[in-house]
């Protein structure tokens, strides 16, 4: 290790690295988020595999007799989450056009809508009348909605940071990657919920 460190301490320390060549039109942060979302889709894919084996493979009636899924409440909740995607889009277009009020209002509304969704979801767990320990069907219900809930929570954390920074006057029409990248994640969380809702509740 000494050998390596001696030569590292060459005369090159006074300056930073040379600017890297930009070999793609896609920004690194954007590409990184897209690849991360591919990974996330695969996590959901694995949970849906379990869902498929337990629901379709076993062939038992779904939901299990004596249990009921609150399709209507969850439907309203879906509408809440989908509208939060629209307000997110509002915030993103606002900062691109230099509209600071639109950014702040949009991001705050998105955060509040997301928090409402999570609150309704937790309330649903409290009142649904079955537990994941009862049967594999309930296990997979809680696992899929819970996995999605965890993603909503992570998304909300990111939105909270963006909200704080928006109110502190960060982001400009030129430099708004910090809104863009969490926004993509939030849209992914919303689209994923539509898939979870339609497979778990509706179908």
């Amino acid at each position, binding site marked *: 290790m000494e050998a390596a460190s001696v030569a590292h301490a*060459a005369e090159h320390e006074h300056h930073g690295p040379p600017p890297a060549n930009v070999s793609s039109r896609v920004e690194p942060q954007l590409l990184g988020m897209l*690849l991360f979302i591919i990974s996330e889709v695969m996590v959901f894919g694995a949970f849906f595999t379990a869902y498929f084996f337990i629901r379709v493979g076993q062939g038992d009636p779904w939901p299990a007799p004596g249990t009921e899924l609150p399709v209507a409440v969850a439907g309203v909740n879906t509408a809440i989450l989908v509208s939060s995607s629209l307000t997110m889009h509002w915030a993103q277009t606002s900062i691109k056009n230099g509209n600071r009020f639109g950014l702040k209002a949009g991001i705050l509304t998105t955060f509040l809508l997301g928090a409402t969704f999570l609150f309704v979801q937790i309330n649903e767990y409290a009142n649904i009348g079955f537990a994941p320990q009862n049967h594999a069907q309930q296990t997979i219900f809680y696992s899929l909605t819970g996995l999605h809930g965890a993603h909503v929570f992570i998304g909300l954390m990111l939105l909270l940071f963006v909200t704080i920074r928006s109110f502190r006057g960060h982001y400009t029409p030129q430099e708004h990657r910090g809104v863009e990248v969490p926004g993509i994640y939030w849209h992914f969380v919303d689209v994923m919920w539509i898939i979870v809702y339609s497979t778990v509740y509706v179908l």
Partner: protein
Amino acid sequence: MAAKLRAPGFYRAGWMMALGVAFAFFLTWVIRASTGHSTFRHYISGEAITTVSILAVPLLFLVGIGGFDYWFYWAMGRPTRPEDHSGHGARTWKDYFRINTDHKVIGIQYTVTSFFFLLVGGLIAMLMRAELAQPGAQFVDANTFNGLFSVHASLLIFLFVIPVFAGLANFVLPLMIGAPDMAFPRLNALSYWLLPVAGALMLGSFFAPGGAFADGWTAYAPLSTNAPIGQDFFSVGVQFAGASSIMTALNFLVTIITMRAPGMSFFRMPLLVWANFATSLLVVIATPFIAASQFFVLLDRGLGFNFFKAGNGGDVLMYQHVFWFYSHPAVYIMMLPGFGIISEIIAVKSRKPIFGYRMMAFSLLAIVVLGFTVWAHHMFTSGMAAWIRIPMAITTAIIAVPTGIKVFSWLATLWRGVLRLDTPMLFALGFLTTFTLGGISGVMLAMVPFDIHVSSSYFIVAHIHYVLFGGSLMTIFGGVYYWFPKMTGRMFDERLGKMHFWSTFVLFNLTFGPMHILGLQGMPRRVADYASRFADMNLFISIASFGLGLSTLIFLYNIVTSWRGGPVSVANPWRGMTLEWQVSSPPPIFNFDRVPTVVGGPYEYGVPGAVHGIFAPTPAAAGVGSGLARAPSE
């Protein structure tokens, strides 16, 4: 002292880990006390505290060491810090023991850590062979033996083969494509520090009550969901190792796509870069599946979920499907970067352009796609629907085709080349031999009747070691020797290197070759004891394996002494054309003074006037990297 406790480093990590244990204690206590659940009769449970601790303590260790500092700073809404490069590069040996954003430092951190786990995993193998030298129980009881082979496999798969390739690529890949660093240096640093955490968890399972996890690296449910607490160490350790792979893979993909030097089109990239591109795609797509499979196990074990409780509608076979949907692509994750290393070595050491460059690249992508269509060939005897075996057998046979394209392309590259049989090249040729043998036994195993016959026998052990030891490890040794001068600025001892190769190659075949026969004769794998008719051959294998273990000492001695005091290496000892050889050895702290321009293919050895990269002369360039990276005249 107070400043030391606040600053990122081991002191802060220490008290934060203690905090993690306290957190686990209180969390489990509060939950148990408040729910009053009938299963939680006692408010304080050692198992619950352990389970929460092995999640919380590693995370807080990472916080303490400083892996998240920048992002915390960002999350609090502070102004963005300008990059001061204070965490970049190594000036003393201590810089290797902290969060470092230099891809070269991280590459060495990765490689050295992985080799530590190779040695530990190898020692465990020695213990197993000692036990298996004679029938009956000598050194360990059956349960300990099960723990030994499980930890052996898990360490060598998750903490040696996968990360050591990430480490070697971390060092050379940005240099090869003309980038000053990886795309996300802080993520790169974090992904390294997840590794020792995962390793500590897996080794720590030996100290858990009930012993280490003892159901193999596959951890099939419901065996794993009913195992003692040591199983949690595996499930959580895999999460950390998997997160580390995903982060690195994402980083490689973004780096390769967005940071190539001007003129470095995809078809001018060295094949090592192609190989890591393909591997990273596999990692990003497949690894979430093993994460999910271990989440299922953890939820079943910790919270009483019913994923794998057949009595409650759970599906045991689902574990195997989800697990192998990752773990079959994982065998290519453990092989494709090695293909890249071999392509580099064989082209340089044959002084010829690589044969079929584009087919080499396309066959990598073909393996990526086909790798996702073969997982159930691990499950021919699992009791799944019988018809699935037919398409899986066919795709498994087909996936040998792109691999065959690569083997024949390497052979065609060797054909009439000016071969230089030094240590890296010997390992490359040794790889071709043993990997082809392992590949052939793989095609044999694709055939359903044969697979059923030898399933869970020593034939499987022989096959896996021919492809992972004879395949991956040979490429790793070759790669380490090949880039050792670049990484350290020193030359290794060629005589010791050759001794290492021949002892490894011969003893490897003596150890694992007879296992094919043992398997065909019906000796089951994963057992501590066996019928006395297998005794002679097992004794032979054990003696050969001890020799194989000793041969690693030659490697260690060579590497350590050469690193400390070997002859200083020139910048380009192998006369390679790829960009990493055009900078000094070891490379300057920011790799290049100015990013080079690429004007031709990377392997035009022996082609008159061929040029790969042009380095613009800069006033500051102190004798490095000026002029053309020209193919040396033959």
